[in-house]
């Protein structure tokens, strides 16, 4: 027969263990206890952080910019199709170090696949992106003793990445602002401009969104 003392001890133990058990359950659920694996970089199970531009942020910014550019119709107005585009300066005004190719690389590839734009790799800010191609072109000119018919860029792509950080108590909010402009070289006019804002809010990083 169970004594009163035993019953009290059991209750005490249960009382002690229940919050631990609940805590452990919550911790397990929140951290996932997962070993490393692969996730789709374009999928919704990537990590979201407040202090970085995550892969999904680059993807979304690029995707929305491409949609906007294609809808605008400016690419179809170039006299020669597909038109040639060169990537100019993308200024990073955020507090973090980023490779702006994360944005422009995706835009270039998708525009190229659209069949509306070709990107030059021998004309670029601060020199050719592909120095070998440029050297070969110059060598060809030397051998043939006449200038090669190199297509000059009809458009240039420039832009800026900015950030805005605010806080309310423990909750932080970071907005990354991506601004891009397409300039028609002959007129010097920005024939297309757009801005994508991506805002993240929370107290800590999370897996999935």
């Amino acid at each position, binding site marked *: 027969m169970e004594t009163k003392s035993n019953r009290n001890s059991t209750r005490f133990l249960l009382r002690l263990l229940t919050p631990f058990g609940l805590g452990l359950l919550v911790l397990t659920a929140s951290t996932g206890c997962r070993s490393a694996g692969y996730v789709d970089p374009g999928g919704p199970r990537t990590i979201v952080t407040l202090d970085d531009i995550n892969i999904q942020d680059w993807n979304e910014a690029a995707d929305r910019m*491409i949609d906007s550019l294609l809808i605008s119709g400016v690419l179809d107005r170039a006299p020669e199709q597909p038109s040639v585009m060169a990537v100019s300066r993308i200024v990073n005004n955020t507090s973090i170090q980023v490779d702006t190719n994360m944005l422009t690389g995706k835009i270039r590839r998708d525009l190229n696949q659209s069949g509306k734009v070709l990107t030059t790799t021998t004309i670029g800010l601060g020199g050719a992106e592909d120095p070998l191609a440029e050297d070969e072109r110059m060598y060809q000119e030397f051998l043939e003793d006449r200038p090669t018919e190199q297509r000059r860029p009809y458009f240039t792509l420039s832009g800026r990445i900015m950030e805005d950080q605010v806080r309310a108590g423990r909750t932080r909010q970071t907005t990354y602002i991506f601004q891009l402009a397409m300039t028609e070289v002959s007129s010097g006019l920005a024939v297309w401009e757009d801005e994508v804002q991506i805002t993240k809010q929370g107290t800590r990083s999370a897996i999935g*969104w």
Partner: protein
Amino acid sequence: MKRISLLRPLAVAFAGALLLFATGCRTSSVDTIQRAEPRAQPTVVEDERIATDRSLGRIVEVRSVNEAMVNNDLLRVQVELRNTRRALQRFNYQFEWFDEEGMLIQQATTPWRALQVEGGEIVTISGVAPNSRVVDFRLKLMTSVR
């Protein structure tokens, strides 16, 4: 001897959850006003729906699926959704594009996009085909994984 109740921790947890719900998940439903007889004449797409998430079907209503051509060569699809609940809901969606032969067009960026919709709000999502070979599309919709 003082009697120890096991229900107390549970009651505290329940009260905490209730408090969180009350402070963190306030409902704010959106009212919508629009022209009684819209002048726009969209090209409506007859769609087929494959529903695997019953709860998603109850939360979101697909009001219309329209299509148009951008500059006469790129397919643009626009889908109008309505959050049928009073609370904010988070979804993710992705467009996929197919050519004449039904082959999926692979793009550098075909990411899922996050979408948050206030209670009762009607939102429009759209996608533009990556090239002129695209004739078909597929829209995938899921609730937020968090």
